[in-house]
């Protein structure tokens, strides 16, 4: 294993360990169980057999908590290092700043994806038991695209952690991501309905904003639509990789200029 990979592994391991030691995940799982268990036994109007609403709520919670975990972990990557001054001993080691950034990003992504994998495994088992369909292709695609979503979200959170205060970072990135989830599909239509300067602002947002709605396959999973084409899946994942790389490049520039 090369020296740099070894360093990235050490840095990534730190973020993963932090997520599990802080017990955030346990809280999230308990919360999910508390919300979903009553829904699973609920029979509206005394009629049983409805399952899609449980699936939808479960996936909504998975999305919500993955956003919270992804942004939470990535937004916490640097500020505590600056506050507790652990950035000094870290950077005093023979490690390049770019490697620190890459390691931190890999850690945030690995931590978030590991939590996501547990969520999807639980969802797959739950849906399998209730509906008798075990891990259909559309669920596999949904998981893959959700990783793409986390790749973008953690890159944004990481970038924000270098240029914004933690609370401003969480607020701004949270609003951006949820805003794009809700309105991303309609941005171009909204832009064309506006006069200048609103049109320009919305058009720029449409071009450069993180189109996280691309990664949302909940509708297909919940309503049992067929999977999307694998070419589309790969295109969306390529978009995630490109967007995350762009954020990391800006973050690397900001980190190089950062004064401690």
């Amino acid at each position, binding site marked *: 294993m090369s020296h740099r990979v070894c360093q990235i592994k050490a840095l990534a391991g730190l973020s993963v360990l932090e997520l599990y*030691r802080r017990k955030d995940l346990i809280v999230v799982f308990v919360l999910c169980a508390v919300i979903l268990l009553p829904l699973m036994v609920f029979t509206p109007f005394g009629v049983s057999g409805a399952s899609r609403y449980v699936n939808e709520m479960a996936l909504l919670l998975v999305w919500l908590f993955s956003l919270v975990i992804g942004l939470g972990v990535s937004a916490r990557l640097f500020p505590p290092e600056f506050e507790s001054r652990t950035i*000094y001993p870290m950077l005093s080691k*023979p490690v390049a700043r770019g490697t620190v950034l890459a390691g931190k990003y890999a850690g945030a992504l690995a931590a978030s994806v590991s939590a996501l994998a547990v969520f999807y495994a639980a969802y797959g088992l739950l849906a399998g038991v209730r509906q008798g369909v075990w891990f259909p292709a559309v669920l596999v695609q949904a998981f893959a695209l959700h990783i793409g979503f986390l790749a973008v979200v953690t890159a944004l959170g990481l970038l924000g952690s270098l240029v914004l205060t933690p609370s401003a970072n969480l607020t701004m990135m949270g609003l951006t991501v949820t805003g794009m989830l809700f309105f991303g599909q309609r941005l171009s239509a909204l832009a064309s309905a506006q006069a200048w300067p609103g049109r320009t602002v919305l058009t720029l947002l449409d071009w450069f904003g993180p189109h996280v709605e691309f990664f949302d396959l909940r509708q297909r999973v919940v309503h049992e639509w067929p999977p999307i084409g694998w070419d589309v899946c790969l295109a969306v994942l390529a978009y995630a990789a490109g967007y995350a790389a762009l954020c990391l490049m800006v973050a690397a520039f900001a980190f190089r200029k950062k004064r401690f």
Partner: protein
Amino acid sequence: MEVVKLEHVSKTFGTVKAVNGLTLTVRQGEIFGFLGTNGAGKTTTIKMLLGFFRPDAGQVSVLGQNPGDPAARRAIGFMPETAYYYPYLNVRELLAFYGGLCGMAKADIRRRSAELIARVGLEEAGGRLLRHYSKGMLQRAGIAQALLHDPDLLILDEPLTGLDPLARIRFRDLILDLRRQGKTIFFSSHDLSESELICDRVAILKQGSLVWCGTLGEVAGDGQQNLERIFLKMLGDAPARAVAGEPVGEERP
């Protein structure tokens, strides 16, 4: 051999001149005390030695290399002033993390960690999370991480802060032992009596400028003065001596 070399180094933050034309050298195998009041520019100088930022003017070299280059930091161990290390790790995990950053093999990390944990007296607390450590214990963990990769140059920023008397004695023994092994130690401190006990040479900084640098023998002079009195004299006396044309801000031979 000159391990640390600063030549006419200056650094300004906004309107504040943190370091002003600083020139000094640290030789191999010596314990170099870097003294000054709060805001004198000690930490800024240390950060430049570690390559955290570049000087506005002048040259900095560590072991003959530019400290901004990560490879140059392979031979540097640094312990910051009161770092609150990752509270969710124990000291073994902390050292494993830093060992990974230094590119050490796992077996080496394990061996060195065990050795250093014993040396800084944290064996019994080795499995406890750092959030349960006292300030002095965190300082000891900091010393361990600085020594982990067996560096040639050890830079310590206020290393005695928070240490109890027993830990100070242990620390002193450790520093002296490292010198015996040929390591170079550069440490900033407010603790003049401790500096007097262990330093071969000291430099006194005032408002970013070097006001005095030399061996303790030179400081003691007639044998009547201790470091504390010299320190007070230097800080209070410097402007007057500068007016009189005496060498100020330059290292004495």
